[in-house]
């Protein structure tokens, strides 16, 4: 589906004509990311991050497959095989650092992509399905990254796995048997390491499948844009190629500079030194922390330090941590505003910049800090705001807010007149 004025694919020569009749793959590509896909002309740089996420997904798959050729998922040797990759495999150190920092950059890019969605309420009709699939992707990414971090079998791998799988133990009645079943034992060991490797290899391909659905769903209404006004006429759009391929190419260059600066000059900056110590079930690290991209949710988990009526603190923390992501599924129906873009929603915009963003910053910061004061109290305030923001403030503000007048069309927003 596309707009009526979308350019039509015309095979350029005999071979392409032949191809078009037998397998219209070039036509498909032309309509998906070529000149046959009209896109709003006013997208800003926040709209680069979807393509960048796709790039990092591919990079993770390529570097991951190469690493898997030299890695062995056996608790006796896993740590040694990662060191073998770092020392003896040709360019192995580059593959490993590229994969580890690639995961971090994938999350940086995805967080920006998601927060673009929050600000411009990209989740609103008719794009609910794109959003729902996006949240599924995010959950899959978290599972994949968590299991990947276990594979080198360092101290943080082991203890991270133990803490996170231990969360299932908080579920009443079935918790402990469930935890043992998930791990294949009472603590992470060979059985757990093997299944984590198996799933860590599988899930990225599941993500690829969901990304295809995500982009398919995107192509039905087409991209939104910074005004949130829907496309009405041909002058509102430009063909994806060459306009956005060029812009995305430039964006990719800038992000790759930052990424390779990390890979080559600060490859361990985002990691934890304890993961260069081989896993030792008998020695607990002083501070067990997950990778930085889990910190906000880890902070929420640890914010619930007191039993709440009949609900034990640990269970409350686990519920809140999952709920913190699951609430995103409901946003399309919680946000009642007829206007999408935060630019035209003055009250919403204030809550976004002075509420949600600082709360997220505090959660990021406290999630990586030891579970001591003042971090615990700070994350409690930020957690309270987080839930209030999505579940209370957003539904109320979006129903009562007086929004600013919208431009008649994208063309008017860009050119000043509607033609």
């Amino acid at each position, binding site marked *: 589906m596309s707009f009526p004025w979308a350019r039509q694919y015309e095979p350029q020569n005999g071979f392409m004509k032949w191809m078009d009749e037998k397998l219209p793959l070039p036509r498909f590509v032309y309509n998906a990311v070529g000149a046959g896909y009209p896109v709003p002309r006013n997208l800003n740089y926040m709209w680069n991050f979807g393509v960048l996420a796709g790039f990092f997904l591919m990079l993770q798959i390529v570097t991951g497959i190469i690493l898997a050729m030299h890695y062995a998922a056996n608790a006796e040797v896993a740590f040694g095989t990662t060191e073998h990759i770092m020392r003896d495999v040709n360019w192995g150190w580059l593959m490993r650092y590229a994969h580890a920092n690639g995961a971090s950059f994938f999350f940086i890019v995805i967080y920006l992509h998601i927060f673009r969605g929050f600000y411009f309420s990209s989740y609103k009709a008719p794009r609910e399905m794109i959003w729902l699939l996006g949240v599924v992707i995010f959950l899959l990414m978290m599972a994949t990254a968590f299991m990947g971090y276990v594979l080198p079998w360092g101290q943080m791998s082991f203890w991270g796995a133990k803490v996170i799988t231990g969360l299932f133990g908080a579920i009443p009645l079935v918790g402990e048997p469930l935890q043992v079943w998930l791990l294949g034992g009472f603590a992470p060991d060979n059985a757990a390491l093997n299944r984590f490797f198996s799933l860590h290899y599988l899930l990225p391909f599941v993500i690829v499948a969901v990304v295809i659905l995500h982009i398919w769903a995107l192509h039905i209404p087409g991209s939104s844009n910074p005004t949130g006004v829907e496309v009405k006429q041909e002058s509102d759009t430009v063909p994806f190629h060459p306009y956005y391929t060029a812009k995305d190419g430039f964006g990719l260059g800038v992000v790759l*500079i930052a990424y390779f600066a990390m890979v080559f000059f600060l490859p361990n900056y985002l990691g934890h030194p304890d993961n260069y110590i081989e896993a030792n079930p008998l020695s607990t690290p002083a501070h067990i922390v997950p990778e930085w991209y889990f910190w906000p949710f880890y902070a929420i988990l640890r914010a619930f330090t007191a039993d709440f009526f009949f609900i034990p603190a640990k269970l409350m923390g686990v519920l809140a941590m999952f709920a913190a992501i699951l609430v995103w599924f409901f946003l399309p129906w*919680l946000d009642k505003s007829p206007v999408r873009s935060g630019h035209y929603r003055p009250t919403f915009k204030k809550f976004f910049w002075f509420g949600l963003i600082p709360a997220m910053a505090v959660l990021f910061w406290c999630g990586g800090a030891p579970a001591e*004061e003042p971090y615990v*109290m700070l994350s*409690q305030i930020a957690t309270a705001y987080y839930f209030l923001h999505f579940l209370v403030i957003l539904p109320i503000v979006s129903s009562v807010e007086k929004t600013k007048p919208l431009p008649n069309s994208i063309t008017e927003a860009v050119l000043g007149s509607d033609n």
Partner: protein
Amino acid sequence: MIRLISILVGLGFTAAVLWAFGNGAYTAVTEGMGERTAEKAFHLHPHAPEGGYSFEGPFGKWDKQQLQRGYQVYKEVCAACHSLKFVAIRDLEQLGYSEAEVKAEAASFQVPGIDPNTGEATTRPGLPTDNFPSPYPNKIAAAAANNNAIPPDLSLMAKARHNGTHYIYSLLTGYADPAVYKNEAGETLAEAFPATMPGTGLHFNPYFANLNLAMAPPLNSDGQVTYAEGNPEPTVHQMAEDVSAFLTWTAEPTMVKRKQTGWPVLGFLLFASILAFLAYKNIWAGVKPKKAG
């Protein structure tokens, strides 16, 4: 309806977390925020030796002379207790030793082997393809010889601690007498935290995470190792600096190659991004008018 449920759920989570906050705040007010522990009062952050190291910074290079000295310190002092199990002896060639020298070095270590006639476990002289062995046959022997603490493998030590290179240097030079050593507040450990005074076989060191470790100061007198002519004086500080440099190399022998590869990659990407930017501006030239108004 959905929004009503949402508001109730939201208020529920908020109430639960504020309840926890209230409990925490009450404790903080009645009992004060966080205890003052010996670790907090005495622990020091690692620092670099004067002049730093040649391999630091984005253009850093190994100082092979220094790495050779560091290797000598490792071999003559640390190897009595610590292995380097991820480092192959042949890699010493990267430090500037010749093939024959590496063979001789390898042969000076005893590694586990099997008697070809009886099949019994024995030891044999090392080969360049072997890794640096552990001086102990197993963990129990290692613990028994060291007051129950196992000397950790040092291959990755420089990456396994925050600021590892500086940490090793600071640890080796930072031993102090807890009876007289004063922290910033001017207290001695004996006055402030008598319970934390090192027990038998433990040694006070403010750089170590919990202040008392089982390793006696391994570098304790100037000239403990004799350096070849043309090298600096082997003071304790010099030896500590050299062995920290060597252990940085064992932790990541590819570090300098990594940085050297980085520059052309970044240069190429910068060039490509400038071209991409010009292409982008060029393609959009007809479409993007100057902002109206």
